[in-house]
Each structure stands twice: as structure tokens, then as C-alpha cells.
């Protein structure tokens, strides 16, 4: 470069490991990231406490008022769904954790360290989604099964209860855990698209709570047709033992939700590659 340059000094001649960095290292890194911030413990802790606690409250309350319930109410009582009521509060906490896993990287600037260490960006998002998805699934299933068994135990005679072998019960319990996990992945994808914690949480809450209100305000014939496509409605169908006339059946609904999550992650991944970090 300049006339004073003679010969380049010999560098440290570093020996690199064979191959390249990849998924195994990224998975370990994402696991470290997830377990070394307090927000993870908070959101998961609240998911467990509220998910199980509210289910226990709802079932104990039903049992306490069983004698005063009318025969019609008793007949239409869905013991499985009532014991899984806490799962619906888990939607928000798991969703918020899904958002934070991605948006906190942007909020704190860690994304630049992350992407300098691993410039193949889709791989980073895949590792993040895998680790978060696995943790969310374990916690969600734990909540669902504990809430179910605790709830059924609290629904002592004369109240009716179900067993895990009852038709549709296992599907509702395991399905509600799966539902939470996929919803969390949808939230993670939203955060990759929006890149701001508050914005992504707003979008997520909007999809869960505001969209159903908007659809309800539409003319009936039209609104009913759209309603079954909403994530919250799909969740209802998974958890309840009776499928409404205009709902998707539980599994088709679940796969549609998986499609939504995949779409948000793919769009998030595309934007992650396209945009400057």
C-alpha cells in the first residue's frame, strides 16, 4: 500500500478446526442465551403457575357449585376443557417469551455479536426457533397434563370428570400443549419481522384478541366463514371435545396454525437475510 512496505510479517498461522461452524454450536449457544436471562424464568414460571393454578381454580369452583347447576348445564359441562382453561393464559406468556427470544437481540444490540459469530442468518433463526420450540413444548405439555390430571381429581363425584382414556381427552390435553408451542413460534417469527419487543407483542396480542373482535363485527355470513381461520378459534377447537359446526376439526386446524407459524418464520428469515443488522 505504501512505499515503506517491505514484506508482510508472518501472521500467527492459526490452525482452524476442520469443517465449519454450524447447527450444533448454534443450538448450544441459543440454549445458553435462553437460560441466562431472567425473562425466560419469569415467563415460564408464570406459564406454569397460572396455567395450573387457574385450571385448579376453575375445576374446584365447578365442583363447589355442582349441586346448584341446572341439569342442562351439567349435561353440557366439558370437564376436559374446564381443566385446560389455564392453558389459555399460557398463550400470552409463551407468546411473549417467543417474542423476547428474538426481539431482545435487537433491543440490546446482541444481534450484531450473534450475526458476527454466525453470519449464515437462516441457520441462526433455525437454531433459535428449535431451542425455543423445544423448551416451549416441554413446558406447555407439562402445564397441560398437570392441569388436566389435577383438574379431574378436583372434579370429584357427583361432578362428572373424564379420564385420559376418554374419547378425545388425550388429544385435547396433548393438543393444547402443541398449540401453545406453535403459537410461541408464530410470535418468534413476528418478532423477526418487526424487530421491536413492544411492536411484536402488540401484533401477537392483536392476532389473538383483537382479530376475533374485528371478525365478530363483520356481517354474520362473512364473519362466520373467516372466524375458523383465526389462531384463537383453532385453539378452542383443539381444547374442546365438541367441535363447533363451522370450526376446523382439531388436527386440520392445528396444521393450519403450523402453516401460520412457518409463514411468519420464513418471512422473518427472509427479512433477516435481506436487512442490515
Amino acid at each position, binding site marked *: *500500500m*505504501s512505499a*515503506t*512496505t517491505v514484506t*508482510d*510479517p*508472518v*501472521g*500467527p498461522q*492459526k490452525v*482452524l*478446526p476442520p*469443517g*465449519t*461452524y454450524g447447527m450444533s*454450536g*448454534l443450538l*448450544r*449457544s*441459543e440454549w*445458553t*442465551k435462553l437460560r*441466562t*436471562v*431472567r*425473562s425466560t424464568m419469569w415467563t415460564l414460571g408464570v406459564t406454569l403457575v397460572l396455567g395450573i393454578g387457574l385450571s385448579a381454580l376453575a375445576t374446584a369452583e365447578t365442583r363447589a357449585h355442582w349441586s346448584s347447576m341446572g341439569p342442562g348445564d351439567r349435561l353440557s359441562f366439558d370437564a376436559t376443557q374446564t381443566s385446560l382453561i389455564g392453558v389459555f393464559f399460557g398463550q400470552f406468556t409463551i407468546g411473549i417469551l417467543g417474542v423476547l427470544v428474538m426481539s*431482545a*437481540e435487537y433491543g*440490546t*444490540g*446482541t444481534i*450484531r*455479536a*450473534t*450475526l*458476527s*459469530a*454466525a*453470519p*449464515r442468518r437462516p441457520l441462526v433463526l433455525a437454531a433459535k426457533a428449535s431451542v425455543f420450540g423445544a423448551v416451549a413444548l416441554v413446558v406447555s405439555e407439562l402445564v397441560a397434563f398437570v392441569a388436566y390430571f389435577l383438574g379431574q381429581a378436583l372434579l370429584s363425584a357427583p361432578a362428572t370428570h373424564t379420564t385420559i382414556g376418554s374419547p378425545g381427552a388425550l388429544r385435547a390435553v396433548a393438543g393444547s400443549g402443541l398449540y401453545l408451542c406453535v403459537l410461541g413460534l408464530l410470535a418468534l417469527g413476528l418478532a423477526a419481522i418487526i424487530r421491536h419487543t413492544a411492536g411484536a407483542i402488540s401484533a401477537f396480542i392483536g392476532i389473538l384478541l383483537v382479530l376475533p373482535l374485528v371478525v365478530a363485527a363483520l356481517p354474520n355470513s362473512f364473519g362466520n366463514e373467516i372466524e375458523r381461520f383465526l389462531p384463537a378459534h383453532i385453539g378452542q377447537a383443539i381444547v374442546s371435545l365438541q367441535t363447533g359446526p363451522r370450526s376446523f376439526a382439531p388436527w386440520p386446524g392445528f396444521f393450519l396454525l403450523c402453516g401460520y407459524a412457518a409463514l411468519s418464520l420464513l418471512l422473518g428469515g427472509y427479512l433477516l437475510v435481506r436487512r*442490515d*443488522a
Partner: protein
Amino acid sequence: MIEARSLTKHYGSKVAVDQLSFDVRPGVVTGFLGPNGSGKSTTMRMIVGLDAPNSGDVTVNGRHYHDLPWPLHEVGALLEAKAIHPGRNARAHLRMLAETNHIPLSRVEEVLDIVGLSAVAGQRVGKFSLGMGQRLGIAAALLGDPEVLLFDEPVNGLDPDGIRWVRNLLKGLAREGRTVFVSSHLMSEMAVTADEVVIIGRGRLIAEVPTDELIAQSSQRFVRVRSPGIDKLRAALDRDGATTVLEDDGSLTVRGLDEASIGELAASIPVALHELSPQSASLEEAFMELTESSIEYRGSSAAGTTGQVGA
């Protein structure tokens, strides 16, 4: 080795980096100088692939950053102090970076020791001072024992001890044969740290020179002259081959003639002299002059503005 070729980056209609080409070679500390907002950080981000250039190219050891098999083993970068999750502790931050590139966890303890953060490694980063954040960022850059190191304003927020420490660290790394590229808006800092400097202004290359050459140029003396007959004197000085600049305060800056010759010339006209004082520009002034000219002559080519250095 870092090679930038016609690197250009726009943000909307604003040009952050404009046709920037330079080389950073191993074994020396290369300073990257420019006023705030001149495109230093953007350039650094493009080197490590965080921002994509609109045109042009930059490679590290002959490869695009994106194609490095083990990025942290090859390039270490401190881009922003405290771009770290405040809720995570220092050790965990380094650990999650180490894991991505299969760096042994013992190395985390080593770099914590190098930067002097071992005692606070278990503390949440949110409680760190700016200086501690800088040290943690430097630890992260050193993690993979890389041959190429980038530091964006590493001495910001450090106390004098810390600044001396960074200076010696950078020099030591270069002595080991590494490529060390360090940005600063302080010419004085680079004068004692860098062996070579790449100077930019408004995203354009102004100069790419060994530091001692720059110092030699900038320590050129000039004479400040005040006189009631300044116009007459100036005309005579110009005739005698001096370079004169009339300053805003009415004084005349004269280069190319010493104070004795100027005094004799004034006596021969004759004009009275109210001031005749030899001056030497500081390095910082030289730098300001350089970068101001990049603003003044921003329409002209980089080669043209480089010519201003020797004038």
C-alpha cells in the same frame, strides 16, 4: 489482511460510504480516522457482513466475511460498547459466543483474565460501567484468538489507565503479526497508537499514509502575520513564492517563508508589522484541516483532496 474496494453504502438518499478503497495489512496497527458520522462504523459493519454494501466489495484474508468457516477464529470485532443483553452476566455472554464457534470454555476464562473482568464475570452486564462494557467487548473480540481484529472506538469511556492498556494491547496484537484495524475520531490517540492511518471524511478516502509521514506533514511550520498594510504585504509575499491565507480574524497565515524573510520583506515595502510569530500546527489541527477539506471539496476526487495534505 482487509481489502476494501470501491465500497459504497447509501441509507436512503444519504451516502454513508462513498467509493472507499483501502488495505489493512498484518503486523501493524492501522488507525481508521474520521470525524463522527464520517462512515467509520458503517465501514466496519460492512467488513463483518452486518450491513451489505450497495456496491463495491470488502474481503478479510481474501474471503467475504459470510464465507468464513469459523468467523470468530478468524476475525474479532468490537463494534459497539455495551451491545450486550443487560440481564446476562459477562461470562454467559462470552460463553454463548464461544459455543457458536466451538471455542473451548476455558478460553472464556482466559479472555476475562486478559481484560481484567474475572472478578465481575458473574455480574449482570447492566451493572457495568461504559469502560467495563468496552473491556467485555474487547474480550469478545479476542475470544477466538483471531488473526484479524477490528475495534470501533475502543477507548471511549475508558480512564487514562484503560486507554494506555488498550494502546499496549493493540500494539502487542500487531507485533504478533495480526491485522489490527482501530477506528477513532481522535487524531492524537491514533498518533501514538497507529503505525498507519486511513483517513475518511463524508465516507470518502482522504488519505492512506504511514502515521509518521502524516505527522511530518502536519508539523510544518507557518508564520502568523498581522499588519495594517496586510494587502500590500500579502501581494509581496505571494510574489516571493509564499503561500498565504487570510484568516477570519484578519491575520495572515504564511507558509514557505520564515519569519526573518517576512520581516525583511515588510521593511522593504515598507509596511508596519503588528505581529510576526512562528507557529506549528498540532496534529489535531492537521486532521481537522484534512477532514474539513473533505467537506469543502466534496465534489472533487479523493486523489485531489489527498493533494491538499502536502500543500
